[in-house]
């Protein structure tokens, strides 16, 4: 298949990787904060409008050429052609799994009588992740234009944008954008005279991380508890309301818009090319949003080519580790992906980079930076608490595993840990998840990776902590009682 053949020579590839954004936008959009950076040829596209006055309004969006791509696509391209273009671009989903978008779309049944549904995943609840929020707050029409083009391609007549409850401004701005777009004829019946009709609705979450898992999201829209479904059948075959459904992330649909606007060659000129020796590697092409938070000088949402190094993101974009301290660990792509050490930060941030240093993957591309003073015991406690709280409880290994892990971390943190606990934690980490084949969804894998990476990469720190805080009992191998509830803060 031609789509998997790398078209970019290695020298060119290096140049692409170097073309990091000089215009990454700081949270408060103070360009002054970034003016010390050399100007690089990479031009922001996903964040191009962010920071402009009233960037969330239709008027501002139209002024920057908005909706001209939709107009062109509806006039000049058939839905099949759009799918082909997205397929040829090798665009991979930005929601965490990196599944090729064109391939996902091609799983929809041919000539289905409909309706086909499209869901935009804006649940964004992975700790450390906030880039979809920036997109929806500052450029909701870009998200909407991408959604409309994606629906046209997939033949969807109705789209739901699932926004987490904690994003009230996104909700307001996306709703206003929908209203404006509909009044201007970009939504509704017979869009721009093309014969294509589409309704877009917002659906509001209620504070559950698992609603971001695509079938949990579907169940939640259907008005039920967000229990992920056993796959197959995959949503493309039987999804929302038992109809063929596509679920894509906010950033993914925004990329679709830019691919249709600028072309496949442009998209493939950015990022890490596919490995020519691995026919199954679709490469890591295109621009990516990187959220950086934690112990850095300039936390924020930045745009850069996929494949930029973790070091460059931290040092050049986020202004380095705060307070002049040394780096200890980085969560490369949202908490689920695990941690990398200070020695591993030259890792390229593309779909394969974090894998090579033992992490789950690129995840959401959002980094959490931890300095030398932060305890890895605190890190793991925080992580285990999150996943225990968010497990939906359907699968025993996940429900029990995440809770046992949390109980052990609580006990370790409180000075009652045993060395043996580290091995028990690793046993949990190695056995829960889709990869070991014991759970329905990937939440358990996400819970496992921080455990596996933190303990394997920082074992000495854990052992020291346990030995120092539990002088009398660290070597105990017999079962010990759990911590009484009163000893637990929150």
């Amino acid at each position, binding site marked *: 298949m031609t789509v998997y053949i790398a078209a970019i020579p290695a020298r060119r590839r290096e140049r692409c990787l170097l073309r990091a954004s000089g215009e990454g936008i700081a949270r408060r959009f103070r360009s002054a904060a970034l003016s010390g950076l050399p100007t690089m040829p990479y031009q922001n596209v996903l964040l191009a409008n962010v920071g402009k006055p009233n960037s969330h309004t239709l008027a501002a969006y139209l002024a920057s050429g908005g909706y001209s791509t939709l107009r062109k696509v509806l006039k000049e391209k058939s839905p099949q052609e759009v799918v082909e273009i997205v397929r040829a671009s090798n665009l991979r989903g930005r929601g965490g799994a990196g599944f090729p978008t064109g391939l996902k779309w091609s799983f929809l049944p041919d000539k289905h009588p409909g309706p086909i549904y499209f869901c935009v995943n804006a649940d964004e609840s*992975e*700790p450390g*992740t906030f880039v979809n929020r920036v997109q929806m707050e500052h450029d909701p029409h870009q998200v909407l234009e991408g959604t409309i083009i994606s629906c046209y391609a997939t033949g969807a007549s109705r789209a739901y944008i699932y926004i987490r409850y904690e994003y009230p401004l996104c909700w307001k701005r996306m709703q206003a954008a929908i209203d404006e777009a509909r009044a201007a004829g970009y939504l509704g019946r017979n869009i721009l005279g093309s014969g294509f009709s589409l309704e877009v609705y917002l659906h509001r979450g209620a504070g559950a991380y698992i609603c971001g898992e695509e079938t949990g999201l579907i169940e939640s829209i259907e*008005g039920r508890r967000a229990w992920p479904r056993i796959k197959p059948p995959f949503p493309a075959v039987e999804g929302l309301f038992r109809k063929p459904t596509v679920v894509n992330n906010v950033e993914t649909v925004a990329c679709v818009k830019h691919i249709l606007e600028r072309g496949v060659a442009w998209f493939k000129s950015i990022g890490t090319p596919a490995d020519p020796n691995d026919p199954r590697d679709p490469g890591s092409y295109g621009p990516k949003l990187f959220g950086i938070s*934690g112990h850095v000088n300039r*936390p924020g949402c930045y745009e850069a080519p996929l494949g930029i190094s973790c070091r460059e993101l931290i040092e050049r974009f986020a202004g380095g580790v705060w307070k002049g301290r040394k780096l200890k660990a980085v969560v490369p792509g949202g908490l689920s992906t695990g941690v990398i050490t200070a020695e591993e930060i030259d890792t390229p941030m593309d779909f394969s980079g974090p894998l090579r240093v033992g992490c789950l993957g690129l995840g959401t591309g959002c980094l*959490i930076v931890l300095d030398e003073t932060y305890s890895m015991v605190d890190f793991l406690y*925080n992580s285990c608490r*999150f996943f225990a709280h968010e497990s939906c409880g359907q699968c025993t290994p996940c429900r029990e595993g995440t809770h046992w892990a949390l109980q052990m971390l609580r006990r370790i943190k409180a000075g009652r840990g045993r060395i043996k606990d580290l091995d028990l934690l690793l046993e949990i980490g190695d056995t829960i998840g889709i990869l070991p084949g014991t759970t329905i969804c990937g939440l358990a894998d996400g819970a496992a990776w921080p455990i596996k990476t933190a303990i394997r990469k920082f074992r000495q720190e854990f052992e020291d902590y346990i030995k120092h805080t539990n002088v009398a009992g660290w070597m105990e191998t017999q079962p010990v009682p759990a911590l009484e509830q009163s000893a637990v*803060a929150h």
Partner: protein
Amino acid sequence: MCTASRLLSDQTIAAIEELFPCYPTRQAVVLPALHIINQQLGHVPPQAVEELATLLGLAPAQIQDTLSFYGFFKQDKPQGKVRIWFCHSLSCAARGAEELLEHLCATLGIRPGQTTPDGMFTLEAAECLGLCDGAPAMLANDTVYTDLTREKLDQIVQSLRSTAS
């Protein structure tokens, strides 16, 4: 249904009915409807569940099943006028959220999950709010507060108290 003791206001019912065309099934209306009810009542008591069931033509259990999954909806008593979600996930914790949360607990005189006796504040320890670039961060009703410090928190609590009462 006896109108005299009906909990759901005409306005709430109208807002829920407006959602019907957005979804092909009535079950799918449940979650947005719960949000609307929660907006009106500050919680979703069992009677409201029954009234919603009648409105949607579903069994109360079908609604209760959904409701009980989302920790967001409380059933026993109205939540405070200001509901605070204070993030203690990693990015915020790394920047001091745990200590700030303790400080907030002390200021309000309640633990996470509780409501102040005057019904003004409900405090929740929240997982990542997607505001990590502004850590430590919290959400109070629909308002976002970022880059929190003790001083900032004290001011925020004070101004919330005066505007909400």
